């Protein structure tokens, strides 16, 4: 979601940065006049390139695995970022005296909270494992799953 947001923001920025304005800003800065009070140039940042030029090596037999690996790496990274952010929140909470972070360590959910958590956790795990177990559903079904072409035949008749 963060990425989508970023892309949106980038698109917005792109739309804002008019080329004419950019040139004017560049011109203004080139002659090295007194820096002192630089006139307020359009303080819009320009989008920077994101991909390096040059063919990317393929590391695995199936190029999809390369992509999948990159996705996993990005997820690992974002999880680490989230944990850092949580750590910041905990430290700020303590700094502002809202409660002692030790309370988190000592927290013991009551029955109700525990049941809710367990439910959420199991749903989460099922969602993650769905990719593995999906095909079983077809195997267990009363009718064997149809191949794509067979479905095309069905819908074409």
């Amino acid at each position, binding site marked *: 979601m963060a990425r989508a947001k970023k892309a949106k923001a980038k698109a917005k920025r792109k739309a804002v940065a008019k080329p004419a304005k950019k040139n004017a800003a560049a011109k203004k*800065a080139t002659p090295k006049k007194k820096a002192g009070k630089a006139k307020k140039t359009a303080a819009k940042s*320009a989008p920077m390139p994101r991909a*390096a030029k*040059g063919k990317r090596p393929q590391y695995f037999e199936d190029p999809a695995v390369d992509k999948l*690996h990159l996705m996993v790496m990005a997820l690992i990274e974002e999880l680490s970022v989230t944990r850092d952010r949580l750590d910041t929140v905990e430290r700020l909470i303590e700094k502002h005296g809202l409660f002692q972070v030790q309370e988190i360590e000592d927290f013991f959910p009551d029955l109700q909270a525990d049941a809710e958590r367990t439910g959420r956790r199991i749903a989460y795990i099922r969602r993650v494992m769905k990719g593995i177990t999906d095909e079983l559903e077809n195997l267990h079904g009363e009718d064997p799953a149809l191949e794509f072409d067979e479905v095309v035949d069905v819908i074409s008749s």
Partner: protein
Amino acid sequence: MDTQIRHPMLVRGKHDELSRQQFVHNLRLCLAADVMPGNRTVYEKRVKPAFRKKNKRDPKNRHEVRREMTKDPYYRLFSASQRASQEMMWDSVTDSVERELPELKKRARGNPHKTKGTLRIPKNFKVPAYHTAADIHLQPGGYHATPDGKDSIAAGALYDRSVFLYAIGGMGNMNDDLGKTVIGYYRENFPGESPARILDMGCSVGHSTLAWAQAYPDAEVHGLDCGEGMVRYAHARARNLGITAHFSQQNAEKTDFPDEHFDVVVSHIMLHETSSTAINSIIRETHRILKPGGVMMHLDLMRDQGMNPYDSFMMDWEAYNNNETFLVRLRDMDWKKIAVDAGFKPNKCKVDGSMLNISKEMIKAGQEPHYTATFPILVGRK
């Protein structure tokens, strides 16, 4: 938080951006410390025995090792992860630079310490093809990205922070350990010299240039680089650090300096980012602009010669996976011959080497250095 000095020109970054940068920093540390050494085990225990069984001999050279290793699942996963860490590194810093660029540019115009450092940007500079064929070490836009117009410092701002993460801090908190390494070598091997004019070729953002300026405060220290955004940023960084150095956008193959101008001409891991033709021109140019008695020192990465096939293969990793392509050729070249062809007398030039300054310092302090490899230096006295 990491130990990079937060000087005024260094990109700051927001919470999550810094967190991503820290993640990349730590990821690279884990890859280097835990995962990479496993490649040797895989080679010794799995790849080499299989090769031996099939060919009745060991792999002869790094290319044979490469052919086998790139099929191994462990090496593949290592390489894919190492490559990803490099891409994530640039991306994590780009977020911050992109947002802070207008502010950084404003700061770049100031000269808070009133240094006398200068900046020269020629009108019609032609970026050499070896810089545009692919983005070196995967920096998006290479050394030449100017997303915000002609006076951009974007490439330099991105490089300064990222290179620290790249080296996992191994180049010191000012990224200047390669400069210090060559300075140390110079002092050891040419004792008592007090150079009046020093040139750092391929200076990027002046990491090593400023080490020279600090080591020889009375000398006139120059840094040149092909990247406009790099030298613009180098100039701003030096001024904000209060260190005087003179930067210009120039190609080291053909500079605008007069003959016999410098006492010392150096470069720090620049040669492997050039080309087979360019390296010859660069050493010839070095010879031209050196005063008689002046000293050339070009430090680069380890040559193939004298390395065992496995270590030599691993040394090529950056060439094949990180767009430092010329490294493969450079590692096979006869550097001394290049110097002799450029005009250095055979008895006045050689390929020598030095351990990193940071490793030497650790040994001096009774600690065990992380890295003890000897970096080759092409040395010549005119």
